[in-house]
């Protein structure tokens, strides 16, 4: 898969994750009932002590993570790829921890959270692959993403 296609995949996944996180952030601050397919699992998770990290809603942290991933796509070169991979790997690790808490501590499943965890897992894979398969840096073509304009 080419770098351009990986960027498209990452952007699509990040937008999907951003939408999920934005909805959960809205639910948190607007104090509305979360739309949930299961028997109140989403509300249980949303109102659990694990829905906040140091007082900050986890949904808001997710929103920031997905936005950061989109921003990392705008950064050229290895730095942008490394930043994207770092954010996605941290997001993956935290999502895995929260899923563990859902299953074994809260004993309720929130489909929105599971959806976000799946998206973050795919993003961790895609950003890591993009980082490892990045085109080699060449002096004539800049940091790597775009071929430099050829001098005539």
């Amino acid at each position: 898969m080419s770098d351009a296609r990986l960027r498209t995949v990452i952007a699509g996944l990040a937008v999907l994750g951003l939408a999920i996180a934005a909805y959960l952030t809205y639910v948190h601050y607007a104090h509305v009932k979360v739309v949930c397919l299961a028997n109140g699992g989403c509300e249980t998770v949303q109102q659990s002590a694990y829905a906040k990290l140091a007082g900050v809603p986890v949904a808001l942290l997710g929103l920031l993570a997905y936005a950061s991933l989109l921003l990392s796509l705008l950064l050229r070169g290895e730095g942008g790829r490394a930043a994207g991979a770092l954010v996605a790997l941290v997001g993956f690790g935290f999502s895995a921890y929260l899923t563990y808490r859902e299953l074994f501590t809260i004993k309720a499943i929130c489909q929105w959270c599971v959806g976000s965890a799946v998206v973050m897992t795919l993003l961790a894979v895609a950003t890591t692959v993009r980082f490892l398969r990045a085109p080699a840096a060449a002096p004539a073509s800049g940091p790597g993403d775009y071929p430099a304009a050829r001098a005539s």
Partner: protein
Amino acid sequence: MSSREQQKAEARAAREAAERDAATRAARTRRMQLLGGVLVAAVAIVAVVVIVSSSGGKKKAAAPTAGPVPGAAAVTREFQGIPQQGTVLGKPDAPVTLVEFGDLKCPACQQFALTSFPAIIQRFVRIGRLRVEFRPQTFIGAQTAPGDSGRAAAFALAAGKQGKFWNFAELFYANQQDETTRYVTDDFLRRVGRAIPGLDVAKALSDRSNPAITATLNQAQTSFTSAGFNSTPSFLLGHSGGVLKPYNVTSLDQLGAAIDKLK
């Protein structure tokens, strides 16, 4: 091309190929090292996050059960001289009715109660232009602190039987705590209730089990759902005794204009 030149060209090509291989290997090594660094950083960040989250998860509600109740004097002044009947605040013949669907554990309701409601009382209720009816909801914290919201609502309704519903609701909001924690114990209710002059706390605690209170709670929730609401606070506004319609309280001036229009 002479044999010597051919040998030179082959040697150059071999050297360049070797240099390319070496550069590729070096780039791959560098990238793997960088990935290792990224992984180590990610694991460290996640570890810190997990520690912070886990310590937060063990946090217990620490509701103060003794000492003065903040806001008690202000709440007493706020409702002084205003008629109360059950969950209705204001003169019975006020031409316009505002219905509030609220949850005593809801932070947004608290914000409305403490920032907007005192001005609504002063400007519209106290002078008899508006009566306000509260229909308590009990869904905030229903999973993490089951029963908490219901206990608060039931006690408020029981206080309403003594004409003190609004005093209790407003003082509860002034002392509201984290919505995800369980803090509405009988001790908490006693402490808040005792700060309300004229409220017989023991009677209110006893009256909570009155079937009429359960029925009122059920009716409040049914009307909330049938009005199409899913969040608190939500409001209905209309001519007293007439049809009430969903209304979004955005400003005092807008509410004043709506009341004038309905009179």
